[in-house]
């Protein structure tokens, strides 16, 4: 419901606040599902930093969204076709939460069984992130650095003074 409100509101400040509430709700949902790491990330990044950054962007752009007249019918058709294809494909997915599903048969059991013997630490998520899948995490760190460089490159140029149109009488 909060998500729908985010989509429908035209006031970007309101949308930002609703989006933060949405993130916090999702974080609570993750916490209920015992996914502590994901919940912590969602609460800190989704509800906290993203909101602050979006607010910082909102300080640079006008507060209200421009309304576009009319509807884009081809876009609607594409969305409906894609959605129908995804729903059709979801019928082939294995039953949710069953022990024999492929996702539980691959490397998961090894991590669950051997993490403590290999590392002596109880948090499997940290073990998978930093040790078993270390190169992935290295890539993520590089991606973050690249994002920082990108923002720096875009915003370190001073804005040029534009000729403002005089307000019409």
């Amino acid at each position, binding site marked *: 419901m909060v998500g729908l409100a985010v989509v429908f509101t035209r006031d970007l400040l309101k949308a930002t606040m609703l989006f933060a509430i949405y993130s916090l709700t999702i974080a609570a949902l993750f916490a209920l599902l015992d996914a502590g790491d994901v919940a912590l990330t969602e609460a*800190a990044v989704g509800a906290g930093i993203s909101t602050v950054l979006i607010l*910082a962007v909102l300080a*640079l752009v*006008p507060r209200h969204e421009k309304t576009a007249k009319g509807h884009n019918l081809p876009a609607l058709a594409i969305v409906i076709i894609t959605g129908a294809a995804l729903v059709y494909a979801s019928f082939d997915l294995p039953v949710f939460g069953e022990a024999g599903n492929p996702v539980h048969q691959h490397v998961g059991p090894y991590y669950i069984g051997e993490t403590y013997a290999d590392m*002596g630490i109880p*948090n499997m998520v940290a073990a998978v992130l930093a040790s078993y899948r270390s190169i992935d*995490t*290295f890539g993520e760190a590089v991606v973050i*650095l690249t994002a920082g460089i990108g923002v720096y490159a875009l915003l370190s140029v001073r*804005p040029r003074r534009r000729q403002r149109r005089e307000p019409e009488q």
Partner: protein
Amino acid sequence: MKDNAILVVVARFLIPLMMLFGLYVQFHGEYSPGGGFQAGVLFAAAWILFVFIYGLETGLRIIPERVIYALAALGVLLYGFIGLLGVLLGGRYLDFDPLLASPQAAQQAGIILVEFGVGVTVASVVMVFFMMFARRRAESLEAGLDPDADEDIGQ
């Protein structure tokens, strides 16, 4: 916002707690939920709250701009260096086992160091993001490009 007593008192109370929690999430990440990403974001959030209260200039006096850029790169370099250290000591890239005598201790040391690199990079990059946007706002206003003013004219 320095004049608002409530904000200043609450922020003074919260900022050390946030930083402490960030450190806890960073270095206790192997035992409880957490790790470099979350800790870096928490740490940067504490700094951003400080900037909200005291202004960007004061915030940059605590941690200078050059230091932020250097830390952003150093975090990734620390990560890569730990990986190379494994190679130098006779293992594969990002293989932590050769770092210390006992494989478990070596894995833990590797994880802590690598997560510390991630945390430093994430914290400084988030600081860079916020600093860039905040400064852009000031520069836009200076150049006479207030977005809200534009909107009022349009209506």
